[in-house]
């Protein structure tokens, strides 16, 4: 309870301020543009008048008598010599001028219409409408009224009101001065305002034309004293000085009876200064600048945008015990771990409550001081602060550490440095799903980046091209327990998005397992030791002896990290989907068989251990739990890196080299296609092209041409592909699912193909042609965006331009799609964020009313579902029936495609798109 609180806020109302109120709340009138006199004292009735509040320590406010920090500051005011339009109100003003009579000031509505409008307003009130509904009604009423050509009350013909941005109103071409505007607004009677959405009790229209300007307290615009002793004033003060100067000159000129032209110029200048005082980014006028050329930050600029008062100061939250730095990979770390630099670990602390059990340890730690030396090359944690039982925080220094160490007793709290195995939260923005923030255990290590296992890249959507991540140190035992149980990385291997593993091997890990297992290569003893060091594995089987040397097969090595009773059968990523699968006899070694925890045959690639698709990973997580899955992943990463290092792997531009005769073949095929296209075009011009049903002749030509060119690109790809075998690193990566696709390769080695915008061949640019390099009306392949070259052979200038056109569409699409889906997701989240799954399986909101009687209608947690299905029937069958289940799976293959399968297919195509986006990653540094 707060003592001394006797009043409570019932409601707050925002309304337009009247000139009277500005003068009433004013502590002083400001008349002079000078701020300080020669002695450095603020001038009375100047912008720094002591009545406006205090900013200098030791002085007292002349209005309330309080000192700095006690005085809240007080408003002053400037009486404007001539009225001025308020920029923030121009739209409202235009509406008012349009919908009221220029002569009698009445609302341009008959009595009946007005009654109808207020009745509709009452109805909105009854139905519990909000201000948006009112605004819509008011807008509709104003629109109706402004259409009237004659005043229904006095018969005066009305003229058209136009607005010259930002603040000049014209009536039928003749300029309205702010004074005239104000006079017209004064004539509008109170009872005509409600239909326009204005409450006359709190807002009179003429208040929107300023006659007095509130001067904010000095506390809002404090002046800074520089080291040189010079005073530097706030931007707002600068702006007020301008207003005061012009105001003064305007008054003098007007009173002296200066020519109308001069008065009008000054009046406009005053309008400019008042406008920029409110908003210095008003379109249509140049922003007011500082002497240095920097635009001034005035009222609107203080509030608006990312760095504005709202987003930065009111909704922005800042936390302690957090760190942010660049991330980099470390395959030797467990997926549960995060590497933290020494420097960060010395700043981030964990509070430890002193007990009789740990007091001796903590005393020792305090003796280490706040920056302990490394001991035997090892990191030693120190202590930054000790919080005594009386709540005092004492900073540990080399001088006081001994004293504090001795005085330490149970009940104290010691803030010790971060150590290995501390629990922290790790996060990467944008935090779009729950896996964007997971709990890791700390490994303090040298260098200045955060490091983690590469398997954890997909959930964070992280790469290492300069990405930064945030780390938060948990401060209580409850928080640590909760984080370890709910948020630990290993608990998030399965994604609730599609019921499969989102944490899994990527890139080189997949290449690694491929090299390890494809066609079961043999490894020497030295190589085996290299691969298996640091891996916690099952005992090694007897070696194969060849020529007196010991060898182990890749399958045997991989089996060492599988659970002992694992049993699986599936097709690898490299499977070519032959019409009839040869199963065990597959010459591609794409048929994977695991029996009793031994990899009998097959290649382990993306389908085996990859993120999103890894079947072994999926099975282990489901059947053996997250702890085993973590162990498996830790081992797979180490083993894959070991294998790829032992075997050696590289890729370069020569991976896309194809023999000269293949290039010739491709050129022939492409020339053929281009010839065919020109034949089609000729046929079209001669009028002998056969029209396709339901299509115009033009469309028929386009379809035929696209077909021919598409086929040509595929053919070029196939010719190139014939010379790109599984001995080629780039092909290994594409086929095993590590990185890239066969399409990428054929575009590098063969032909890039037709460029398209909105699914059609390029056609826009010049009149009847794409570029001036072609004849008008040319419908041939080259003229409409067919790129004959490959990325490797290089593009001609016209081809390059077409490629840029096609590429731009992709960029625009992704930009539009991400912003739109982000907005949609935010709306969905705010609609669903407080729904909760109750113990009885119902989904309820905070009012405890039912949203869904049974969660998701089927009560299935999608995280534990099998790609959306509640039960994996095939898996159950193979558990029960063993090898006989293979028979049943064959029957299953002929089974009709169900709903979940369709969904799964959609998911897979989406993933491919996601990878596509990575290729266009051009957003600055990362």
């Amino acid at each position, binding site marked *: 309870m707060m003592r001394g609180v006797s009043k409570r806020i019932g409601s707050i109302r925002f309304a337009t301020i009247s000139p009277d109120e500005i003068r009433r709340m004013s502590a002083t009138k400001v008349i002079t543009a000078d701020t300080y006199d020669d002695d450095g004292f603020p001038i009375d009735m100047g912008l720094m008048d002591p009545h406006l509040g205090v900013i200098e320590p030791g002085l007292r406010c002349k209005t309330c008598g309080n000192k700095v920090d006690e005085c809240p500051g007080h408003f002053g005011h400037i009486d404007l010599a001539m009225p001025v339009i308020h920029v923030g109100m121009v739209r409202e003003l235009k509406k008012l001028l349009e919908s009221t009579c220029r002569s009698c000031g009445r609302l341009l509505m008959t009595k009946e219409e007005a009654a109808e409008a207020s009745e509709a307003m009452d*109805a909105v009130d*009854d*139905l519990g409408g909000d201000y948006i509904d009112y605004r819509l009604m008011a807008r509709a009423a104003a629109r109706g009224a402004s259409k009237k050509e004659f005043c229904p009350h006095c018969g005066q013909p009305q003229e058209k009101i136009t607005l010259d941005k930002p603040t000049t109103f014209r009536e039928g071409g003749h300029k309205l001065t702010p004074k005239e505007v104000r006079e017209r607004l004064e004539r509008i009677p109170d009872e005509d305002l409600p239909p326009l959405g204005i409450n006359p009790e709190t807002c009179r229209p003429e208040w929107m034309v300023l006659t007095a300007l509130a001067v904010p307290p000095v506390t809002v615009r404090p002046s800074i004293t520089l080291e040189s002793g010079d005073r530097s004033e706030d931007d707002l003060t600068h702006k007020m000085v301008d207003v005061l100067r012009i105001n003064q000159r305007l008054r003098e000129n007007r009173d002296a009876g200066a020519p109308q032209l001069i008065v009008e110029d000054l009046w406009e200048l005053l309008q400019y200064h008042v406008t920029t005082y409110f908003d210095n980014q008003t379109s249509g006028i140049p922003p007011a600048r500082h002497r240095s050329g920097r635009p001034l930050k005035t009222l609107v600029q203080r509030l608006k945008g990312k760095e504005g008062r709202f987003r930065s100061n009111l909704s922005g939250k800042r936390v302690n015990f957090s760190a942010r730095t660049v991330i980099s990979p470390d395959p030797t770390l467990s997926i549960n771990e995060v590497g933290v630099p020494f420097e960060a670990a010395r700043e981030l602390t964990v509070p430890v409550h002193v007990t009789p059990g740990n007091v001796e340890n903590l005393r020792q730690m305090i003796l280490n001081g706040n920056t302990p030396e490394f001991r035997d090359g090892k990191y030693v944690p120190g202590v930054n602060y000790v919080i005594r039982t009386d709540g005092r925080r004492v900073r540990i220094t080399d001088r006081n550490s001994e004293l504090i160490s001795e005085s330490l007793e149970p009940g104290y709290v010691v803030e010790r440095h971060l150590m290995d195995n501390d629990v922290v939260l790790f996060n990467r923005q944008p935090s779009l799903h729950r896996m964007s923030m997971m709990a890791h255990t700390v490994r303090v290590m040298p260098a200045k980046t955060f490091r983690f296992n590469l398997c954890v890249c997909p959930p964070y959507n992280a790469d290492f091209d300069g990405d930064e991540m945030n780390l938060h140190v948990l401060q209580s035992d409850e928080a640590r327990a909760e984080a370890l149980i709910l948020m630990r990385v290993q608990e998030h291997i399965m994604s609730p998005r599609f019921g499969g593993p989102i944490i899994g091997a990527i890139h080189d890990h997949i290449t690694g397992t491929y090299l390890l297992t494809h066609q079961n290569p043999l490894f020497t003893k030295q190589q085996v030791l290299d691969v298996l060091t640091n891996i916690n594995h099952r005992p090694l089987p007897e070696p194969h002896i060849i020529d007196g040397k010991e060898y182990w097969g890749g399958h045997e090595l991989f089996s060492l990290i599988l659970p002992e009773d694992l049993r699986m059968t599936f097709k690898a990523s490299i499977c070519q989907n032959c019409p009839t699968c040869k199963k065990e006899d597959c010459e591609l070694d794409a048929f994977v068989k695991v029996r009793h925890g031994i990899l009998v045959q097959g290649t382990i690639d993306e389908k085996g251990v990859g993120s999103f698709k890894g079947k072994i990973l999926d099975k282990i997580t489901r059947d053996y739990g997250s702890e085993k899955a973590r162990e498996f992943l830790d081992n797979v990463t180490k083993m894959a890196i070991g294998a790829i290092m032992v075997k050696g792997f590289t890729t370069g531009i020569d991976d896309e080299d194809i023999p000269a005769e293949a290039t010739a073949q491709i050129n022939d095929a492409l020339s053929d296609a281009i010839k065919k296209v020109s034949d089609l075009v000729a046929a079209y011009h001669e009028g002998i092209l056969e029209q396709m049903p339901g299509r115009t002749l033009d469309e028929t030509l386009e379809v035929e041409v696209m077909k021919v060119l598409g086929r040509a690109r595929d053919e070029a790809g196939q010719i190139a592909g014939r010379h790109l075998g599984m001995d080629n690193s780039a092909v290994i990566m594409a086929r095993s699912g590590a990185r890239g696709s066969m399409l990428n390769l054929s575009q590098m080695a063969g032909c890039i193909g037709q460029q398209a915008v909105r699914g059609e061949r390029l056609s826009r640019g010049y009149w009847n042609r794409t570029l001036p390099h072609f004849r008008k009306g040319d419908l041939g392949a080259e003229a409409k965006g067919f790129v004959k070259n490959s990325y490797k052979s290089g593009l001609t200038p016209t081809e390059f331009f077409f490629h840029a056109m096609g590429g731009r569409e992709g960029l625009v699409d992704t930009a539009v799609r991400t912003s739109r889906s982000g907005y949609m997701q935010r709306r969905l989240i705010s609609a669903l964020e407080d729904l909760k799954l109750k113990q*009885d399986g*119902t989904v*309820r909101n905070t009012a*405890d*009313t*039912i*949203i*869904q*009687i*049974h969660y*998701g*209608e*089927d009560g*299935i947690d999608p995280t534990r579902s099998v790609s*959306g299905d*509640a039960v994996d029937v095939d898996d159950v069958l193979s558990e029960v029936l063993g090898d006989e289940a293979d028979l049943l799976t064959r029957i299953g293959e002929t089974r009709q495609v169900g*709903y979940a399968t369709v969904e799964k297919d959609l998911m897979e195509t989406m993933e491919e798109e996601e990878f596509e986006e990575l290729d266009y990653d051009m957003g600055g540094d990362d």
Partner: protein
Amino acid sequence: MSDFNVLTHNLIPEHHLMSEDEAQQMLSELNITRDQLPKIRKGDACIKVLERIHGPIEEGRIIRIVRKSDTAESFEVYRLVIKDVKR
């Protein structure tokens, strides 16, 4: 008003008026009170069709809706009849 029956449209799920006994049983099974149920307006097109069968349906009655579900084949929801929107 046309005499088209919206309930026969394939995008409209089955709507049934629950008897007071059925309603009580459902409420006690779910251990909830009427006000915790989702709502349906008395002016809803489906209610109007049901009124042609059962006569006037007062506020406070409960409608059982049987939806087709991709994941659970069919799924029942219940809605409380509330007052119509004021026109």
